[in-house]
Each structure stands twice: as C-alpha cells, then as structure tokens.
C-alpha cells in the first residue's frame, strides 16, 4: 500500500523532471561551469586538500539548490490534491528517494567534471566514489526536510541555505575526514568508523523526517 504510493509519487517526480529537462541541465551546467572557473583560477594545478574542499563546496551548493526546489510546487493548491491520494509518510519518503537519485547522479557527474578539468590527485578512486555517493545520499536525506521547512516559510532560497548549513556541517566534517583518507592513505580500516557514524546519522534523519513531516504537511 504505502510502497505503491511511494513508487507512484517517485514516478510522478521523475516524469516532471523529464518533462522539464532544463532544470536538471541547469544544475549540470552550474556544476561544469563552476569547475571550469576553478580550473581557470587555479591554473589546473590543485593540491589534494584544495581539490577535496572544492569538490564538497561545489557539491553542497548544487545540492542545496536542487533539493531546495523539491517542494516549490507542492505546497500550493496542488498539495490539497495529494492530500487525498497519499499519506505524509509516503510523500516525504518519495521526495527523499527522488532527491537521493538526483544528487547521486549530480555528484557522480561532478566527479567526472573534476576528473576532466582538475584531475584526480589521489590514491583510491573507489573509496572516494563511495564517500561521494554516501555523502550525496546524506545531503539528499537531510535537505529534503529542510526544503519542506523553507518552502513552508515561503522565502525559499535564502532560508534554505541558512537553515541547512549548520545542520549539514557535522555530517560534512565526517565526510571530509573520510575523503581526506581516500585521497591520502586509502586505508579501508580507517573508513569503517566514519561510515558507521554516517549510517547511524542517516537512520536518525529518516526517522526524524517521517515523524516531523506530518506537522509541515498539515495546513
């Protein structure tokens, strides 16, 4: 029942995305052009630490921008229609899955753009990619509920950044530690502890979002 609702909502979001490809293409263009600006500014020579910092900053802004619009059309009158079709739990989980999909693709394409323009100055690609995917999943989960809050407050974009950055920071610090490890030593044994911390955090985020979202959903 609820899984049915989630798949239908997810399909609806994907269909909407395919119908308006300029939104996704816009995000992609944003990624590529910022990476290109970095390439021009740094003259193509970037040390490992800067590479890591640039990657996460660019990805964070892309994530805030693309997740920020996930509710921009939902809390209008159309949302009264959804109200009759699905519960808030299905709705928020559908949105989260959709954002996870979107941001994972964005983070991988961003990685590609980085490889092309700035190279990959490090040891373990597989470990970095794992960290990047884990990071984008976490960003997507976290930003979905914040996007709901910001959309309710109707000052979407400035609020989105203000509200999300302080909550994103702890997670981002763990991620940067993880990717720093991937870039320098690439020891899998060192990656286990932060990965477990991340997983615990994701579980917590999902539970909180499912519990809290009905209060945003209610008019």
């Amino acid at each position, binding site marked *: 029942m609820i899984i049915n609702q989630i798949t239908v909502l997810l399909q609806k979001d994907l269909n909407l995305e395919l119908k308006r490809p300029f939104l996704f293409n816009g995000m992609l263009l944003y990624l590529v052009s910022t990476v290109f600006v970095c390439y021009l500014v740094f003259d193509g020579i970037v040390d490992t630490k800067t590479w890591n910092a640039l990657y996460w900053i660019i990805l964070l802004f892309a994530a805030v921008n693309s997740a920020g619009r996930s509710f921009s059309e939902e809390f209008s009158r159309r949302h009264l229609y959804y109200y009759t079709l699905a519960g808030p739990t299905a709705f928020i989980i559908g949105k989260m899955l959709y954002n996870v999909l979107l941001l994972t693709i964005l983070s991988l394409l961003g990685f590609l753009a980085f490889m092309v323009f700035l190279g990959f100055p490090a040891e373990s690609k597989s470990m970095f990619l794992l960290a990047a995917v884990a990071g984008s999943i976490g960003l997507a989960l*976290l930003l979905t*509920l*914040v996007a709901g*809050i910001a959309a*309710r*407050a*109707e*000052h979407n974009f400035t*609020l989105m950044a*203000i*509200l999300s*950055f*302080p*909550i994103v*920071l*702890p*997670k981002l*610090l*763990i991620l940067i*530690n993880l990717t720093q490890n991937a870039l320098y030593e690439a020891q899998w044994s060192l990656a286990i*502890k*932060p990965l477990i*911390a991340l997983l615990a*955090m994701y579980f*917590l*985020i999902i539970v*909180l*979002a499912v519990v*809290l979202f009905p*209060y*945003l959903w*209610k008019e």
Partner: protein
Amino acid sequence: MIAHYKWIYKAVAIVLLTYALLAGLTVKLPYELPVIYESIRNLFYHVGMWFTMLFVFLISFIYSLRHLKGFNPDHDRVAAQAAQIGLVFGMLGIFTGMFWANATWGAPWVRDPKLNGAAMSLLVYFAYIVLRSSIADEEKKARISAVYNIFAFILAIIFIGVLPRISGDSLHPGQAGSPLTVAGLDPSLRAIFYPAVLGWILLAVWILEIKVRMSRLHNTLTERDYD
C-alpha cells in the same frame, strides 16, 4: 502554592553566583599548572556558560516537542525565548573562551572540534531566529519553527557531542592526552565549580521566566489593540 516559594530559587541563584564570583577570584590555587596558571579561575565562568547554554537549549527543545503535541502557543513562547537566552549564554561562552584561549593557546580562535561545535550550535539557533522572523502567521510560525528546532537539536547539538570523538583530539581538557578533567579537579576548586554552574543555570531560568512573562504581556497588549 508553588508560586509563593518561587523566590527561593532566585535567592539561591544570587547566593551561589556571589559565592562563585568572590571565591572564584580569591581562592588560593592548590597547584601551579603549566601554561594555565591563574587563568584556571575562568573555569567557573567559561564552562558554566556552556552548561547553561545546553540546559536552556534543552528547555527550548522540550517545549518545541510539547508544542507539537498540543499546539499550545505558550509552549512555543517558552521555546523561542529559551533559544534567545541560549544564544546570549553561548556568545558569552565564546567571549570568555577567547580571553582564555588568548592567554593559554596564544590566539583567540584556534582550530579545535569543540570551537567548531560551539560556532555550529550558535549558527543553528541564529537560523532558528531568522526562520521565526520570516513567517508572519503566528500559528504557522510556531509549528514550523518547532519542527526545525527538534530536527536541528537532535542532528546538530547531539552530534557536536559525538564529533570530537570521531574527528580526533581537542585542545580542551578532558580529551585524550590531557591531564585535567573536572572529576580529577582539586576538591577546593570543585567546591566552587559545581555551585557556579548551578548558579548560572538558575540565573538563566530566572531570565527565562521574566522574558516569557514579558512576551505574554506583549501578546495580550497587541491583541487588545486589534479588538
């Protein structure tokens, strides 16, 4: 009935803080600590600020939970005022810490997980205040900011406690490699530290009570104007 005895905790706050101020500045230090020396006295004030900040943020969190349970506007009022008071104590904590850091570490701001955590938790509550001021409708403001408060408190404030253990050593005492912890403190200093912390917390509760009453009065006055 309870209202008649409310003055007791205020009196206790005054007594404890007077004691903490006088004894904290005049107590004869039981040992000469390297690097820290006399600045150990800041312990009674600086650490107390953080304990108080966390306590008041916890009050704010609990009242946000209670607001979502019954949608009582009074609970939201307490949550909002507590967040503001927590911010004041947090900033005082940062300032007292800057003096101390300047004396012992040589710079007012150093790279340290605890400092990052402190800055983060202040950012969370500044964001909370901005969120509140951006929603006009009172009922909606209360509900949505309560959601953010709960989400942010659990994800940010709790992880600030966990993070230093993941991201390595802190310069602060009580972490790996440091000889000094509160439990290992000399009894003569602990006898000032615990009363001082309790005093600061009671002072914060006192301020909170006044601010909530003011906010209530302000509310009834503006409502009467509309009628």
